[in-house]
């Protein structure tokens, strides 16, 4: 499929810059610093979850809908569970799923993208068609159908993310491989007699991986959204596991009884999403401004 | 201010310009003097990084934001262009001053037809759309675009590189400007096309009578086309004069070395070609002396400490060298 802009070509082969200076520039970008800060907070929250005195799944119906206070910092939900604790445990789920699923998508994307880009033309055509077909199924629909068959679970969420993001990455990788394949330095390597594996691993992938990682970082909030969204629909993590999506759904159900559940479920999604997006934007601006057109 | 025939169309005097870059201040142009008479074709020659494009941008008022004019003036038909507002400058561009840019592949808007673009640039004219179109067709015919009536509704990518450049020339000359700035217009073309384009340019120029500032790094093109030549090196004009004179008797060491290593200027085949050693000076911190001192075989202490003044020497009108009258350098490979 041809379109006026292909984000991938823009990302091909640019000058690598010195990492340390870049890090400094990254942090000196207020948005990048803020993003990094928010992510650090989220990660710390996920790590600290186990240190809290409350059990995230321990029920205590007698203190349901407690208002925030010294005992329950964010109050309790309809089953008397401590919302703050659940919120922090939710961070674990969100981070593990989003990072795990993104890494899985990257690997899948890299594999198929390199195959399509380097492979024979018929293989490329088939893979391309498959990627386009996957991308033509709207995300939520794909998730819903898949989960109708697999049943709700964490793995289903990961599978959805891989199926949604994998082809996108694969397409980017493929375009870059195609662009790189005819790049002079690849030609030069081939003229020296370098084989496929050497060219792919030493010269192609290292030149693709940078922008791809940045794109992936910017996709993490979307993955957090997918996980929370599916859990919100009751198709993600199963109760009683605390996910921001399920907290939010409970909050939605009891929105008249307490607004704190909506806060505990929604706010961290907003914070994490902003954190990763800000950081991703800053990373991109620092390392690869051309990606902005994605 | 009254103008008489002998007044130059464009006079750049003492122009000093620098860029604000993260590493400091890059002194891109230093005390540049240049003038173009009415109907004169002036070649501005320089290698990469010599500042010829910056000079062009300064004349056209198309400088990027980081550029700062520190001193000097650019007078065009009696007006100092450096003091003009963006709006006033727009009033001149495409009317009294026109440009042809280097890359014919990207200089035209890819999503508008040639005709649309040629009509758009006649925005000052009171003519009807139909008349503007007719003028555009006529102009295309003048630059020898075959079948201009139908070609005018085509998009730029449907033209070959040479034709595109001719379209660009047609556009630039449509308003019969007093000054045409041509920024390496033939560099991207093959030799046969280059010659044809130069011929066309010369022909149209003599018809319209405009002055031309022709920017190039190709010495042969200057020799072929230009009445006068200005040699630029590292942000300064080091030598200036009538083309024939300068080619015959270059006075600045840089000019001499430059001519010396151009294979086209070397009559006898030789396996080992001459070159100029060394690198361009760092323009963020230029040394106090002559800008060419670090590479000049004749440089002595005077050259490294004192900045040379502009001299008249030989048949050249301007030579920025402490020793303009020294004998010609022996070029050896």
């Amino acid at each position: 499929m041809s379109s006026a802009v292909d984000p991938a070509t823009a990302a091909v082969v640019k000058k690598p810059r010195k990492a340390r200076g870049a890090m400094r520039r990254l942090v000196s970008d207020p948005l990048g610093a803020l993003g990094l800060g928010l992510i650090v907070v989220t990660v710390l929250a996920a790590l600290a979850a186990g240190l809290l005195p409350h059990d995230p799944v321990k029920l205590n119906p007698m203190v349901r809908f407690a208002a925030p206070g010294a005992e329950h910092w964010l109050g309790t939900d309809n089953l008397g569970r401590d919302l703050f604790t659940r919120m922090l445990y939710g961070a674990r789920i969100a981070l593990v799923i989003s990072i795990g699923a993104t890494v899985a998508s990257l690997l899948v994307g890299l594999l198929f993208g390199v195959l399509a880009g380097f492979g024979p033309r018929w293989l490329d055509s088939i893979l391309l068609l498959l990627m386009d077909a996957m991308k033509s199924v709207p995300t939520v629909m794909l998730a819903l159908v898949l989960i109708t068959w697999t049943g709700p679970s964490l793995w289903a969420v990961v599978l959805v993310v891989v199926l949604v993001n994998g082809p996108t990455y694969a397409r980017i990788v493929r375009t870059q491989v195609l662009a790189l394949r005819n790049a002079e330095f690849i030609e030069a390597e081939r003229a020296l007699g370098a084989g496929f594996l050497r060219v792919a691993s030493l010269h192609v992938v290292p030149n693709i991986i940078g922008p791809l990682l940045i794109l992936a970082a910017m996709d993490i909030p979307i993955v957090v959204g997918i996980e929370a969204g599916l859990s919100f629909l009751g198709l993600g993590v199963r109760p009683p596991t605390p996910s921001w999506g399920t907290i939010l759904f409970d909050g939605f159900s009891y929105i008249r009884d307490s607004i704190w559940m909506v806060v505990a479920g929604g706010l961290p999604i907003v914070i994490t999403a902003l954190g990763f997006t800000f950081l991703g934007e800053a990373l991109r601006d620092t390392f690869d401004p051309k990606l902005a057109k994605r | 201010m009254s103008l008489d025939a002998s007044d130059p169309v464009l006079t750049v005097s003492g122009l000093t310009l620098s860029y604000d870059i993260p590493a400091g201040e890059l002194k891109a142009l230093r005390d540049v003097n240049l003038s173009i008479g009415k109907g004169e074709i002036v070649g501005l020659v320089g290698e990469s990084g010599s500042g010829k494009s910056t000079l062009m941008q300064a004349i056209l008022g198309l400088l990027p934001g980081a550029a700062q004019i520190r001193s000097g003036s650019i007078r065009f038909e009696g007006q100092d262009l450096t003091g003009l507002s963006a709006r006033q400058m727009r009033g001149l561009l495409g009317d009294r001053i026109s440009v042809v840019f280097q890359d014919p592949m990207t200089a035209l808007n890819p999503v508008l037809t040639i005709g649309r673009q040629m009509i758009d640039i006649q925005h000052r004219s009171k003519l009807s759309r139909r008349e503007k179109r007719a003028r555009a067709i006529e102009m295309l015919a003048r630059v020898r675009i075959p079948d201009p009536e139908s070609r005018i509704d085509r998009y730029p990518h449907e033209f070959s590189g040479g034709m595109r450049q001719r379209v660009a020339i047609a556009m630039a000359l449509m308003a019969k400007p007093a000054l045409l700035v041509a920024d390496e217009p033939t560099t991207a073309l093959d030799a046969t096309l280059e010659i044809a384009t130069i011929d066309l340019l010369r022909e149209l120029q003599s018809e319209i009578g405009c002055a031309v500032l022709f920017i190039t790094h190709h010495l042969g093109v200057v020799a072929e086309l230009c009445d006068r030549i200005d040699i630029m090196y590292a942000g300064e004009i080091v030598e200036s004069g009538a083309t024939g004179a300068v080619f015959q008797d270059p006075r600045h060491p840089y000019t001499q070395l430059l001519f010396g290593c151009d294979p086209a200027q070397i009559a006898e085949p030789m396996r080992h070609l001459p070159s100029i050693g060394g690198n361009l000076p760092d323009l963020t911190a230029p040394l106090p002396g002559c800008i060419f001192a670090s590479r000049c075989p004749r440089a002595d202490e005077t050259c490294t400490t004192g900045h040379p003044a502009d001299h008249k020497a030989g048949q050249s009108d301007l030579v920025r060298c402490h020793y303009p009258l020294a004998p010609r350098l022996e070029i050896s490979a």
Partner: protein
Amino acid sequence: MTPLLSVRNLDVSYPVGGLMAKLRGADQLQIVAGVSFDLARGETMALVGESGSGKTTLARAIAGLGGLVSGEIRFDGAPLNTSGRQIRRDIAFIFQDAVSSLSPRLTVRALLREPFAIHGIQYPEGEVERLLRLVGLPATIAERRPHELSGGQARRVGVARALALKPRLVIADEPTAGLDVSVQSEVLNLLNDLRTRLGLSLLIITHNLNIVRHIADRMAIMYLGRFVETGDTAPVFAHPHHPYTAALLSANPIIDPEARKTRLYLKGEVPGLVRRPKGCEFHSRCPFVQDLCRSTPPSLREDGPVSYTCHFPMEASVNA
């Protein structure tokens, strides 16, 4: 003595278009047609032509870098296996764009050690420094990365890489493109020095006739993928037989207005490869075209050290 490289009736095509083109049988575009030449040891030959003349395609095909090749290529007397590994050591290719022909994330040192790694050859200690010295670069440059090099430096690194495995033929594609006059000589001199010192053969692709005149022993002029004229450099310059050669030579801008008057101008534009003209393929642009040219392809003719394909060759005096 057999020539180092011997090419006979070489055709090179590239696949184009998609399924539809395949159905129409128009899925291949012939870019190089019927090229034959020999290159002796230690000789420098220049391939000259304008954009689209097929000179780069020809060179790449010889180096085994693509194209559907038919015809015969013999290297050192034996048929050349363009897909084998040995050809990579025997024939080195120097790319047009020096900076972008170096893998951007590797240091110069890593780049120079790569040829050895690729071919599984024990890396000789100090070889990087030796190669850098060979191409006139300081050893300190070894830790830089390609984007930290100037155009000239990058080109030298490219040359050093090409020479690492001691090739016998070096193909240089537009080795001076984009370089300033003051620098291009350095690169040409370097190539020439190496040729003499290492006994290489050089195949140089260029559109710049001025450098050809100085550095090439022999030259070939290409038009639409064919050699229209081949021969020793000096005689060709002195007396071009083919009108195209004459036109190219006269397209050299000069200061002398008188000399311009004898300039030969070509008509129109280069026809597309898809619709090659009948007869002499140059006839659509030839100022001296006659009926015969439109119908019958000229055969190869020889005049001393020069051979050409033209029915009505130029007189010796035209470009005097």
